[in-house]
């Protein structure tokens, strides 16, 4: 279990307990956190679960795959801290994780 804070583009915070083994995307979608669309349900096919991961958490969230990098490269509003949240698995080590959401996923 990890407590994850999702911050919408307008600053609204959602603090959610996410089960180990789920992804950061699933934690948002299953708790009806707005701002993460996840059209493909986690198949790394759509880039609509784009988040910004705080610098402090970069190592713990792991490296992105070539497929993820490639998808992100063409998403909108991409920053160096951008990740696809369907590709970040939740573990106890991510307790306290903070992710910010972009203005739009499309």
């Amino acid at each position, binding site marked *: 279990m990890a407590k994850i804070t999702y911050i919408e583009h307008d600053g609204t915070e959602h603090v959610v307990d996410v089960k180990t083994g789920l992804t950061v995307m699933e934690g948002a*979608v299953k708790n009806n956190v707005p701002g993460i669309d996840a059209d493909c349900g986690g*198949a790394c*096919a759509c880039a609509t679960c784009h988040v910004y991961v705080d610098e402090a958490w970069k190592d713990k969230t792991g490296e992105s795959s070539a497929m993820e990098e*490639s998808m992100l*490269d*063409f998403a909108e509003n991409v920053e160096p801290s951008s990740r696809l949240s369907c590709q970040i698995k939740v573990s106890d080590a991510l307790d306290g994780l903070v992710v910010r959401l972009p203005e739009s996923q499309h």
Partner: protein
Amino acid sequence: MCDLGANIVILGAGHAGGTAAALLRQYGHTGPITLVGDEPLAPYQRPPLSKAWLKGEADADSLALKPLEFYPEHQIDFRPNTRAVKLRRSDKLVELSDGTTLSYDILILATGARAIKLPVPGADLAGVLELRTAADAEALKAAVGPGKRLAVVGGGYIGLEVAASGRALGAEVVVIEREPRLLARVACEALSDFFQGVHQAHGVVFEMGASVTGFVGENGHVTGVTLADGRTLPCDAAVIGVGATPNDELAAEAGLETARGVVVNLEARSSDPAIFAIGDVAHRPMPLYDRMFRMESVPNALEQAKQAASAVTGRPPPAGEAPWQWSDQYDLKLQIAGYPFDADEVLLRGDPASGKFAVFHLKGDQIQSVEAINSPPEFMMGKQLILNRKAVSKAKLADPSVSMKEVVA
């Protein structure tokens, strides 16, 4: 016009219906929402049923759109195992299979589509399966495994995904396709050839241009598929994947305008202003291609759920999207954006032999659609260009050494 306290009934608890219910609450709807589904499960994702779930890489929890407690927590009255049997528009009432009725101010039809049955002898034998629901997928999963012989009827996406998953589980797989090539209705020839080659390399056997005339069985269970040329192919199970037909009878009987699907506008509103239709059951406008169309895809279900929920809650309509879909087979990710309507040229970017390429369908110098294999940049940029209607340079597009960011003319 807009009433956040209106009484909303959603018929169909699939991806479209489930998403509409959640979005209505997200958008501030406070009135009653009743979500009626004919399956025992709360809304779940269907795409993994032929892919990750079938291979055992995803569990039931991960399929669910929302946890079960989500519905009571958000005052959504979810009614499983229930279907609507009659729509009485003049009374704004729906009669349900359990004998009760529901009144509505606003009705959202999300009744989906159903698998087309093969009208041949033996199609009702045990072991002749289809793949639409989680229950169908359970039956299929139980029927495939090492050494089991699986016959897949229909070389479309579902059939090919099942074939790939079946091979991954150790089953012997034969795919029987009526047309001379795979994916004949939905993909170009280059892609058909490519997929057939990949599946053959993974041990799938193909019977192309072959019609199924029936199924034979012993003790009520299928043991073989008979073909028009007289042969019988032995099998332990068969899966039929020959397309789907919209569940629009309820709407048609109630006098709503239908055309192989419930006809709606860009708000997903039907010919009755109090009734919306979303997802596989809707025949919707596609402004990008200047025509009406019915689509069977998750992105379409989500887009229309957004359109309906926005219209109902008085929000501005969502921005238009380019239609898209995806398929996973073996280590291949196929991503498709757009439809090749009115295309006058097919352009290949990359080498199919490398397992990484894209096929663009152009109308003049505009991209109508792109089929991308293991090529996210081609898909992502292609999707944006389809939506923005920007002209591209064909020479640059055909040259994989030019970045997709630089193909705009």
